[in-house]
């Protein structure tokens, strides 16, 4: 100890005294998990999401039938032991189609939001950190895009790109991008005003390093929360596009496409509509619960 400064201070481990503000700061992964686990609704959401993802991933193992195989004996068959969720208009097993449909729905949710984040995050980062005319140009463009309702934009884009699941994902992803541009920009501007960013400049960090090393990790929580909530919206969007015939093409299953066909048989075979409808509801609810829980767990100060 060449400075003659006290050893006791170094030995006196983290002692944030009675300062209550400190105790609320974002902490370790363990602390985050504790906060998330303290919220029952978030845990339920997480459990459902995990179950849905596992089902979709293991569809080949868990589905009792080939989702496209027809069985004339099961046409519009009521739920039974052989077909717990019943049969559809050409005798395909509804349960198997729900299970495989999870791939389309969750896949669309994850891929489209992944695309939206992949595009929106860098653009928002540039807009927020560069400022000036670049920022102004990007913001006017996102303003224009945000003026069009999300679903309408997605339908228009999907119609333009042509009906297919891939194009539906693309359309949903592009439609959701402006949300992430705006969110990222707002977050970047808030974080950039913090003193530690100035401290980073003062030690000689180049701008790209400030953006990536100092700002980005601090905005990830907000992006993650928004992404989770947007997945729920994207699942609805995919279902809507498929319902309109713009998404998953027959005979491949998707919850939205199943609903589309089911609407013609509401009187004779209501289970054809009930199960995909419930599935969509459950998935959307799960992602929303998880997103709300994440928001609280990641940043207690933003709790409203």
């Amino acid at each position, binding site marked *: *100890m060449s*400075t003659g400064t006290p050893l006791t201070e*170094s030995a006196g*481990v*983290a002692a944030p005294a009675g300062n209550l503000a400190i105790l609320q*700061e974002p902490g370790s992964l363990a602390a985050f998990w504790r906060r998330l686990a303290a919220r029952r609704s978030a845990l339920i959401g997480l459990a459902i999401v995990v179950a849905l993802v596992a089902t979709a991933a293991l569809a080949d193992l868990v589905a009792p039938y080939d989702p496209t195989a027809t069985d004339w004996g099961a046409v519009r068959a009521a739920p039974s032991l052989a077909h717990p969720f019943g049969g559809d208009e050409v005798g395909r097993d509804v349960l198997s189609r729900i299970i495989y449909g999870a791939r389309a729905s969750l896949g669309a949710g994850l891929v489209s939001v992944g695309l939206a984040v992949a595009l929106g995050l860098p653009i928002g980062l540039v807009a927020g950190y560069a400022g000036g005319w670049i920022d102004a140009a990007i913001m006017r463009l996102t303003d224009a895009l945000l003026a069009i309702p999300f679903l309408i934009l997605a339908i228009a884009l999907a119609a333009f790109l042509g009906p297919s699941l891939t194009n539906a994902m693309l359309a949903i992803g592009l439609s959701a991008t402006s949300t992430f541009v705006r969110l990222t920009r707002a977050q970047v501007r808030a974080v950039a005003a913090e003193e530690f960013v*100035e401290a980073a400049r*003062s030690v000689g960090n180049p701008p790209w390093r400030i953006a990536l090393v100092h700002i980005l990790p601090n905005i990830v929580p907000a992006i993650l929360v928004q992404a989770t909530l947007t997945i729920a919206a994207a699942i609805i969007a995919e279902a809507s596009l498929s319902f309109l015939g713009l998404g998953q093409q027959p005979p491949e299953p998707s919850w939205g496409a199943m609903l589309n066909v089911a609407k013609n048989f509401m009187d004779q075979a209501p289970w054809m509509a009930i199960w995909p409808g419930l599935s969509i509801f459950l998935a959307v609810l799960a992602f929303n619960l998880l997103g709300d829980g994440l928001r609280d767990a990641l940043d207690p100060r933003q709790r409203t």
Partner: protein
Amino acid sequence: MSRVQPVVSVRNLSKAYPLRAWWGGKGTVFRAVHDVSFDIAPGETLGLVGESGSGKSTIGRAVTMLNPPTAGTVAFEGTDLATLSPRALRRMRSRIQTVFQDPYAALNPRMSVGAYVAEAFRLHRPDMNATERRAAVAHLFERVGLDPAFMGRFPHQFSGGQRQRICIARAIALKPSFIVADEPIAALDVSIQAQVVNLLQDLQADLGLAYLFISHDLRMVRYLCHRVAVLWRGRIVELAESDRLYEDPRHPYTRRLLAAVPLPDPAAERARLAARARDEQADGLPGDLVEVAPGHWVADH
């Protein structure tokens, strides 16, 4: 103003902010700092005192080019910082450092404190590998009185005084010759302030650092600083060797400021409060500095 070759030489520094025009009228400017000049010698501490809005933090950020001045020059070891390219200025930052007021805000909450200090080497010492950086950071931790075992921890696990030590460790990592300390003890508890002031003094003695010490704690400024500049309404109204300034203040504002400082002695403080009736008022804008005695400059009033 001082005879030895200064580390930092500030000449006619001004910082103006455009004020938004109302209804398309002609915009005016707010002069946060106007025509400020001073030198700081190697190993010297210059105190900058003044009240909120006097422009003292603006000067600190202008001198380090974190918020460059709108007029005037800042020369560091003879180099005019305004002439440097952004890249050259970033390289120069290894020699000019800042310790900020709020050690809670100045640390990146999602970066381990070891990585935070190591960043200085990462940026300016490409020749060092990870092991060498680690060793250097451990050494710095010991230097500022922190246990190197805490390198992997995150800022929220430290107390205010410890965080300020971490900030100081990073500031001295590249052996700078000049540090701007912008209210470095204002956010700390009384019992911790002396620790940090002692550390700053020890480092100055060992490393020959020059400080620009910005503070509103007028007693600590007198204790710590060799010379003191009093700032009022964006200008220096008085600049002198510190004991001289406190014992023989010439500008009415300096007198008013010093008379307002509470004294930690009941009898003296009660007497001071009773004497406050004949409070000096300073008004108008400060004029040019005149040398009233060797090294003692006072603005026309």
